[in-house]
């Protein structure tokens, strides 16, 4: 019976490891995720209280298309990017509602969102959400018809 239990356990580990190759986007808690549809409602012009939305991925992709009102905050997979993010938010109240997003790659391959999320949590921010982008920003935001802005 111990052999069977060991086999089941190793199966579980093998599948879990395979699900997150090389990064840990999937380790972001589910309750810290925000879906595109929900965020799109939040950024409507008539909404008075909007979160601070930060793109933490590629500047080239940001320049092509980004969420209106969002700011580019550096690629969080790099030390310099995390420093840029840190500098941007360090003076904000720790209960500030912040949404992070990237969309450079499929969710499980994104190198940026988890480091950004961990950085803000380590700084003590309590209301941080990460936009769940399954495939990429083009397919899951632009192609859905959600609002888009261009430029840096």
């Amino acid at each position, binding site marked *: *019976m111990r*052999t*069977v239990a060991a*086999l*089941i356990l*190793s*199966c579980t580990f*093998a*599948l879990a490891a*395979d*699900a997150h*190759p*090389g*990064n840990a986007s999937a380790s972001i808690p589910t309750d810290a995720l925000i879906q595109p549809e929900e965020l799109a409602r939040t950024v409507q012009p008539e909404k008075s209280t909007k979160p601070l939305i930060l793109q933490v991925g*590629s*500047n*080239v*992709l940001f*320049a*092509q*298309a980004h969420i209106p009102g969002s700011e580019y905050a550096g*690629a969080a*997979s*790099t030390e310099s990017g995390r420093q840029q993010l840190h500098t941007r938010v360090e003076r904000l109240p720790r209960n500030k509602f912040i949404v992070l997003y990237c*969309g*450079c*790659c*499929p969710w499980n*391959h994104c*190198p940026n969102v988890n480091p950004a999320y961990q950085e803000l949590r380590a700084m003590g921010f309590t209301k941080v959400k990460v936009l769940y982008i399954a*495939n*990429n*920003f*083009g*397919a899951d935001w*632009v*192609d859905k018809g959600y609002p888009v802005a261009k430029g840096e």
Partner: protein
Amino acid sequence: MKKTLVPILAVIVVLAVVGRRASRDWNPVKVPGAKQSDNRRLAPDFSLPDVSGHTLSLSSYRGKVILLDFWATWCDPCREEIPRFIELQNKYGERGLQIIGISMDDSPQPVRDFYHEFKMNYPVALGGAKTGDLYGGVLGLPIAFVIDREGRICTKHIGATDISVFEREITAML
């Protein structure tokens, strides 16, 4: 009973892991998926600096079958494709295949380092937002276009794509 159960479970474990990997490899091809271009529009021309500082123009490769790959050094699926593209270029270069990489990195140095480290055997240009706009927006990586000898876009692949898909499309035109 136990003796029967162990090998059965072992088979299930292997099938589950292998099946998951196979599905992951193919999934990006289907979602959003390779799109057959409806009217085969001409691939927009561009002139960009390559990793050595020379100018790379798409139009100078007219007459070849081109695999135009938008990628970045920080993009894991892109990096995984590069060694296979190198193999493809080796295998079909003499028959008229030309792979061209367009890096969408924010700065050139990581691209130069990567190019030399991986001994890339095809040209890589340094792209940007304007290049992305030319191709309808490169809002996720990798994205690859297969272009025929007349310079028309035949297919567009969004996400990591199995190399056999590219090989099938390319050899059909060589």
